[in-house]
């Protein structure tokens, strides 16, 4: 998963703080609310459409917030705040160029095809366009990955709770798993979506005070930049683009081509347009206009997220102090474990503790817990859908009554959570497994984007082309990952095209090459095989489909208008922080 971070590997075993009675009340209120929602929503979740796609009745706002929230897990929040401390404002690229263009492209260009094909999932679209081979490959890899990621989230939450509050790991794993299993099993995607929107509000309520109070303490943005420059001895930490001319010129060791073509064009498009975990949220929209607007609304909110993730990391470079008043220096996880210092990924909890007393601390911790639980729920609800529709319904029991599939959806949720718990304990025994699980996501996402985008935009792409292109892209991605793992820095220099490249650059270039291999193989094989007639591509491919009007009457109702507004703000922000 391109946006995930290996948080758990870097946290210390020492406890940072304690919760007061008020904090416990705030945390308990959240658990009561999510369980109530699960039981309440169950009454309206009887058909497969209701269970797996929330009845396709979500408004653009709800689908949009859920869409952006599904990616706003605590693993990402803590990891990217740590990255902002480590690499400076460059980490913002993962929220702006690494998200906004792809989200707008999904809404305006791709969503009509996903929506009017009435597919239940991304593998389902592949089946309609490329047949069973491509669907099977995508469904099995996605199902496997999501369930592992759910376990990673579960374990990460348990370790954070142990690190910050001293809670027992097993207690945290089981409390989180049982709560999520209950509310997803009862309410399906609808329950998951409601909780994701709640989590989005909670994360802002719990984390927004950090940048507000931090900027007050630092004396404003200009003073903050001056203090960072003084403390780290460089101006590079507060510029988005001006340091990316060379691999050596910036703390991340990455070139602008990697950011623009690797992250901006491939990794983010792969993730935001083909990862079913996020696309499923938009498929729940009530009509075509809502489906197109949802990613645009999501993009607008996504642009604001660096305020609560990146700014705290930057603030820590200026204001985070030791008890004796000296500047605190955070270090990599392995160093932290050896020296007893705090690790990069602890920056968000440290800043929370710095400004938040009883009550506010509980709110911040609840936001983190909500983020972890939402991450588990998102993964397990997507798993349940893909398992039931694209594996069980496609290959094991094809013509069962609708009720049977709903029942299978509920059972697969429970079984999925049990497998996740097993994964969590597996990760607990061997922490490096988590890094591999996260890397596994990146194996499939970029080639999948190549297959889906050619399927949607090129009529000539054939069933054989889609399957072999996806397979070749995936295998080449795994091969490049293995090559770098075994070959070290020399191999990295070949993949990223520079001896100065840092590990962060490897993901970007590997994504770029595996996408290109997928596209080339798809094109070559397609040209050698027989295409489908246009009549079989209606509703699936640009040029063979009459896209229905989305119902927008005025300028302000048009998704393309709001996509333009978001684009202008996006460009303006990049220039402002150039």
């Amino acid at each position, binding site marked *: 998963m391109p946006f995930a971070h290996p948080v758990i590997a870097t946290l210390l075993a020492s406890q940072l703080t304690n919760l007061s009675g008020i904090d416990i009340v705030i945390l308990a209120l959240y658990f009561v*609310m999510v369980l109530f929602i699960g039981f309440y929503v169950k009454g309206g979740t009887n058909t497969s459409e209701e269970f797996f796609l929330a009845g396709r009745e979500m408004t653009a706002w709800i689908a949009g917030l859920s869409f952006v929230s599904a990616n706003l897990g605590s693993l990402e929040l803590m990891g990217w705040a740590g990255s902002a401390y480590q690499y400076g404002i460059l980490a913002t690229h993962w929220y702006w160029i690494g998200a906004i263009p792809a989200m707008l492209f999904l809404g305006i260009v791709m969503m009509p095809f996903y929506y009017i094909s009435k597919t239940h999932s991304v593998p389902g679209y592949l089946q309609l366009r490329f047949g069973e081979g491509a669907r099977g490959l995508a469904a099995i890899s996605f199902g496997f990955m999501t369930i592992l990621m759910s376990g990673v989230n579960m374990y990460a939450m348990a370790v954070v709770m142990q690190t910050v509050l001293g809670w027992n790991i097993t207690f945290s794993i089981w409390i989180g798993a049982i709560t999520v299993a209950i509310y997803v099993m009862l309410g399906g995607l609808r329950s998951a979506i*409601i909780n994701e*929107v709640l989590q989005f*509000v*909670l994360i802002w309520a719990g984390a927004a005070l950090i940048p507000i109070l931090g900027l*007050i303490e630092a004396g404003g943005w200009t003073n903050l930049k001056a203090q960072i420059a003084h403390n780290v001895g460089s101006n590079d930490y507060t510029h988005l683009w001006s340091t990316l001319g060379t691999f050596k010129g910036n703390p991340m060791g990455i070139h602008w081509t990697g950011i623009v073509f690797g992250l901006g064009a491939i990794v983010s498009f792969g993730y935001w347009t083909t990862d079913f975990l996020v696309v499923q949220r938009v498929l729940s929209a009530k009509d075509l206009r809502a489906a197109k607007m949802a990613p645009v609304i999501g993009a607008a909110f996504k642009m604001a997220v660096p305020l609560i993730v990146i700014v705290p990391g930057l603030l820590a470079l200026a204001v985070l102090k030791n008890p004796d008043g000296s500047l605190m220096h955070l270090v990599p996880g392995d160093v932290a474990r050896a020296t007893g210092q705090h690790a990069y990924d602890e920056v968000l909890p440290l800043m929370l503790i710095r*400004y938040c007393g*009883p*009550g506010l601390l509980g709110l911040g911790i609840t936001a983190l817990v909500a983020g972890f639980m939402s991450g588990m729920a998102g993964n397990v609800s997507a798993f349940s859908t893909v398992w039931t529709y694209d594996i069980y319904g496609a290959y094991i029991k094809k013509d069962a009554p609708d009720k049977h599939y709903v029942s299978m959806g509920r059972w697969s949720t429970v079984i999925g959570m049990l497998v996740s718990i097993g994964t969590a304990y597996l990760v607990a025994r061997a922490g490096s497994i988590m890094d591999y699980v996260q890397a596994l996501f990146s194996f499939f996402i970029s080639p999948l984007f190549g297959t889906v985008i050619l399927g949607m935009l090129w009529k000539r792409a054939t069933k054989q082309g889609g399957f072999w292109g996806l397979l070749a892209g995936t295998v080449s991605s795994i091969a490049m990952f293995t090559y770098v793992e075994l070959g070290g820095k020399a191999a990295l220099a070949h993949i990223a095209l520079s001896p100065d490249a840092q590990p962060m650059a490897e993901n970007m270039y590997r994504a770029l090459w595996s996408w290109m291999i997928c596209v080339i193989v798809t094109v070559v094989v397609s040209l050698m095989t027989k295409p489908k007639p246009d009549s079989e591509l209606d509703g699936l491919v640009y040029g063979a489909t009459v896209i229905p009007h989305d119902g927008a009457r005025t300028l302000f109702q048009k998704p393309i208008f709001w996509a333009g507004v978001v684009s202008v703000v996006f460009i303006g922000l990049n220039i402002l922080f150039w």
Partner: protein
Amino acid sequence: MENKTADIHHVHASIEDRDVKHKEPLSLWFFVGVLCLGYGLVLTPVGIYEFSHPPSVVLANLHAAFWWGLLMTIFGAFYTIRFRPGSGR
């Protein structure tokens, strides 16, 4: 006879209305409002208490818990009332 038919229709319509009202799902925004209101009502008294017993955090003089609690109470109350059951939204 006509009156009796009208009464039956009236009763029937009332039952239908009641069923419709009963089945009207709670708005997601109502849940958001209730949770924020609940948190606001917990945080605001804590903030008031902290005027006389400041917590040992940086910038305690700004009374963040009180102002944040007040903001959440107002935000939560607005959403709870606006999207309350039966409000038609």
